[in-house]
């Protein structure tokens, strides 16, 4: 098992996951691209040492062909997913000019309720100091 490949896999996983935590769909797509390649490399590493093409009649150290078949399948699936996400990002952009992933309805409802509760309080100027403890995240 190659050390360089293992480290590269780790790096791809880390950077891919980091990008996927962002709100912009474009970054998420790039993150998924990196992550997908990381997984493909992981599958490749699982196949063990490299060797001859596993064709009937060949002799010597043959490579394990199963991981390669798995990688091919996962590349095809990854391609479909990336194209679909690009379409989503484009559609999101035509609707409101941004491709950010928004909070869900419930989060926004809770945030609104918290804001309302705070504005009802007599000492309204104290609102800022309360913010960190409240689940108010939406900035849309």
């Amino acid at each position, binding site marked *: 098992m190659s050390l360089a490949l293992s480290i590269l896999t780790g790096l791809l996983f880390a950077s891919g996951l980091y990008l996927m935590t962002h709100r912009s769909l474009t970054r998420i797509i790039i993150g998924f691209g990196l992550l997908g390649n990381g*997984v493909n490399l992981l*599958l490749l590493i699982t196949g063990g040492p490299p060797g001859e093409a596993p064709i009937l009649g060949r002799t010597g150290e043959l490579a*394990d062909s199963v991981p390669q078949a798995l990688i091919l399948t996962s590349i095809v699936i990854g391609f479909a997913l990336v194209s679909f*996400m690009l379409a*989503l990002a484009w559609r999101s952009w035509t*609707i*409101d000019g941004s491709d950010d992933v928004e909070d*869900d*309805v*419930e989060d926004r409802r809770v945030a609104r309720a918290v804001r309302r509760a705070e504005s009802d309080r007599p000492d309204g100027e104290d609102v800022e100091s309360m913010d960190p403890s409240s689940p108010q995240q939406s900035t849309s």
Partner: protein
Amino acid sequence: MRMLLPLPVAVPLIGMAVSLLAVRHRRAQRAISSVALVITLLASIAILVNVTRAGTAVTSLGGWPADISIVLVADRLASLMLLLGVAMTSLVLLFAFGQGGTDEASPFYHPAYLALAAGISLAFLSGDLFNLFVAFELLLMASYVLVTLEGNDEQIRSGTSYVVLNIIESVLLLSAIGLTFAATGTVSMAELASRLAELPEGLRVGLNLLLLLAFGMKAAVFPLFFWLPDSYPTAPSPVAAIFAGLLTKIGVYAMIRTETLLFPGGQQGLLLIVAGFTMIVGVLGAIAQADMKRIISFHIISQIGYMVMGLAIGGPAAIAATVFYMLHHIPTKTSLFLVEGIIERHTGTSNLDRVSGLLHRSGPFALLFLIPALSLAGIPPFSGFVGKFALVTAGFEAKQWAIVGVSLLASLLTLVSMTKIWVGAFWGKAEPAVTDGEPVGILRSNKLMSAATIAVVGSSVCIAIFAGPLYSFCESAARELMDPSAYVRAVFGR
């Protein structure tokens, strides 16, 4: 039999291809979908009958020996779930015909729906982990399309988080499969069953947890459920009904396979905690909501908790209870979403503040809601009672008092939130007001939608009526699951 097993996967896929060719012809697409699903339904009935009579059926694709080819395996659990899945997809298709509107009119509704059906069948039948992953991807890809079919603001918003979360789940699952392959050199479940047992303890627990994490996200169990209540309600009603009835249950099915075949009795303590929290958090979420679709979406989570509970208790009695619970849950949940779809079609909203007095419009229609609602809460004559009773009995036998207490409490809270829908939507003054001289029944205004809903509710009632024989079938399915060596013998023919 060898030709029979691939049919539930192949026929919808061929149907999908033909349907894509007929993109401009809605009638042709409808005919293709109907024919494909009817053939699939007949095939799955034949499979179930065969499996009951002759035991686990195995087909190696391409005729290769079982240890190097892709195998499809149908044991009792798989064929039961397959039949239920295909029956629900067929009935919901009927409902979608009746509803018409923008979703079904989209040229890509039918191809995506057939791909979804193929993915569901493949997930139940697949005999190796990687093929299971492919099945998940197939049905997820179709579900992405169906969730965002209208492409409006709301659907894109919730669709995006649905897609992103499921992609993370897929990546997790694929890495888990890759690591399992690295450790054992195989992805065939039958071979894994013996080879995983030889691994060192730590590695085995690690692989088990990774797989459970991926499947748990799909099944929407406690810490991983947050994507569900946001994405299901924005989907069109027939689509949401299929998702609610089947997709999460495929996650549970995969969890059952992992915990009985691959890692027998692996993580029961963890699953027990997860089950308790899933039940309570799901039902509390439901109580807090004011929108029907969101309430019943949260109920899915709570119900998943019951299935995980049986799995966590372990033993043939508890597994049989889990299988029966899935059997009861699929039609019951589907019918609740269909009823909600009719309400939404009739009143234009699913918000409880804006709908009321449906009882005055149509008594029989109210009954269509009442039966699955009471069944879900576990009130005696209905199927949910049998499932919960079996689970609680199994819990008592295993002396797991805490989880039994939690499940009974969650069941009570389920009743509370169902009462909320009943009081909000069915009781009270009819609103929007009934138009003069037009007291037309809700059921009669759209016969196709009503017929489909009645059929689904009917199947739920039938499960209650034939609970005896069905339960003994679930028991023999559970006995099969508890004996992994039988599965291995069936696959390798030795």
